């Protein structure tokens, strides 16, 4: 800090200060955008917000914990602007941690025209989302259905053994949202994969 300098060198100091603050400024602006992916990573690691991974995970081979049962509830919802329905074959299952399970979901396009949609998952309590591993899920990609078409899609998941003991119920909610062509093109949260409807 140029506090003891004379006025003449003061101009030099001003230039230096301005350069430095501009660098900090640019850094902070970039940081704001960096926070978006950082937040996603943070959420995935800590389970903040009940976000789940949006790509397939590997099965963790571990012994099934038969000493306790966890209830997994499934709730399906469809948002406005989409003549689709999403149903689940069973509303809830009781599983042992460590075990892998399969549940079947049905998509149906009630409308007359083809359209695209994406099921957005959310897990509650959010702490459980770190321990929920999806080996296969329809939610990894968007779906395209012709008018009147129906599609069965499986969810294969595993609750890992390190699921905290106080979590006895895990609720998985899928909300169907319409996909507008523009939306699919640019997403800050990674590319949305085009799924095949078969």
């Amino acid at each position, binding site marked *: *800090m*140029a*506090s*003891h*300098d*004379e*006025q003449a060198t*003061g101009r030099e*100091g*001003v230039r230096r*200060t*301005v350069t430095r*603050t*501009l660098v*900090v*400024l*640019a850094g*902070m*602006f970039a*940081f*704001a*955008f960096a*926070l*978006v992916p950082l*937040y996603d990573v943070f*959420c995935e690691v*800590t*389970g*903040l*917000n*009940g*976000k789940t991974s*949006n790509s397939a995970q590997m099965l963790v081979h571990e012994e099934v914990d038969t000493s306790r049962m966890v209830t997994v509830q499934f709730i399906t919802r469809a*948002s406005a602007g989409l003549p689709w329905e999403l149903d689940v074959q069973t509303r809830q299952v009781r599983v042992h941690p460590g075990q892998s399970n399969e549940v079947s979901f049905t998509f149906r396009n009630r409308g007359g025209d083809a359209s695209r949609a*994406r099921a*957005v998952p959310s897990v509650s309590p*959010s*702490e459980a989302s770190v321990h929920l591993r999806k080996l296969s899920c329809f939610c990894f990609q968007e779906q395209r259905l012709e008018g009147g078409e129906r599609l069965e899609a499986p969810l294969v998941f595993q609750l890992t053994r390190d699921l905290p003991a106080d979590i006895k119920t895990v609720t998985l909610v899928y*909300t169907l*949202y*319409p*996909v*507008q062509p*523009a*939306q699919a*093109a*640019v*997403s*800050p*949260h*990674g590319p*949305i994969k085009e799924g095949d409807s078969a």
Partner: protein
Amino acid sequence: MASTLPPKPTPEHSTATAGGMAEAGHARPRGLMRWLLTTNHKEIGSLYLIFSLTMFFIGGIFALVVRAELFQPGLQLVQPEFFNQMTTMHGLIMVFGAIMPAFVGLANWMVPLQIGAPDMALPRLNNFSFWLLPVAFTLLLSTLLMPGGGPNFGWTFYAPLSTTYAPPSTTFFILSLHIAGISSILGAINIIATILNLRAPGMRMMDMPLFVWTWLITAFLLIAVMPVLAGVITMMLMDINFGTSFFNAAGGGDPVLFQHLFWFFGHPEVYIMILPAFGIVSAIIPTFSRKRLFGYASMVYATAAIAILSFLVWAHHMFVVGLPLVAELFFMYTTMLIAVPTGVKVFNWVATMFRGSISFEPPMLFALAFVVQFTVGGFSGLMLAISPADFQYHDTYFVVAHFHYVLVPGALFAILAGAYYWLPKWTGHYPHLRLSQWHFWLSVIGVNLTFFPMHFSGLAGMPRRIPDYALQFADFNVASSLGAFLFGASQLLFVLVIIKCVRGGEKAPAKAWEGAEDLEWSVPSPAPLHTFETPPDFHPHRQH
């Protein structure tokens, strides 16, 4: 706005002496062009202050529309759509148009005078950053006339209400906020450059008056968080216009992310609006106690501590969005800790008064009211920090009471205190004593009548941002509305005081207040247009 400037608050003779100074060989432009092109820190400071006062009245009128509608249950004057625009605009204008520019204006005027600098480090940039403001706020106000109306989603503009569900004018709202943000950033750069480089020879950092210190720290906060705000609103802009989904769950985005980013900016922003107030009060209390500020070093350190902690508490605005338990606890603890350095400040002010020699001129009255009422706001802040209790307080009038106590009898009273304190230096005259006292007492009564009952309506269960309410909240709202109109009307007295003070009044000497010691009191009153062209002699131990 600029063309209707009231009589120049800078002393008239300053124009007369201007001729032979500074830009030798160029005749200084006169009239409107003089104000458009000025690079003088005192003139720009005055422009900022006048702009901020104008915005204060516009934002105040919006508040009075809100209070008039809330005077009784039922919808009488305005429809909910318009009511929401009024609450939103009131918040945006008061935060970005009134409080922040007022502090920048005070900094422009006083920082060079307090550190013995001839002007701000970057005078032309200074002019530019001011003139961005009228552009930004004309644009913002014009959104009210656009189809679908202006912003109606609260000053916190939570997504998706402010993106997918927003009125078409939102793009212009974002643009105006960008411009205002750039103005703040440029102002901050200028202040930092001035403070770090242009201090009088011999003045070390720890010799600087606290107003300079608090503004230095505030400027760093601005540099750190305004770009984050710019980032957030850019993301909004992209979500609205370019089909991205940063905050749109339908495209894999997250509305809660918006709140994290907003409050990462928003909480330091709260301190941006209060730290310079600490500086002003820390100048006034010692002056009128005729005693050195108690714990100068602690004050500086506490300000720095508050600034650092302000980056670690943002999620206390989000206790009910469903954070995990650990996050909830973390932010509760950090928020409670911020009470410690804040408490230190209040204790130091009281200790400064203890065994002083106290007199009650208008600046001191406002400063004392600041200490008491800001502390009341601090107490409710401490209550809000208790996360389980916040489940009941959150988004109610209790919160409205809290932040208005911090910002109105807090920040605003400090600005008024500063104005009364430095008016003799700006105009060469003391403000009219009787009128100032009337202004003070009516303001104190008005402000408490407005905001104190809000604690009760909030605890009784009244949510904020509603145009109509259940019958059990009626009495509180009658009181609040009456208080608001009283407060609003009494601010007209302030305008009267300023006009009278510019025109004439009791002449003030260079050292207008007996106990005042900082460098600004060594130049004549009114301060000539150019001061400290040769650096003053600064004796470090004169003050500390």
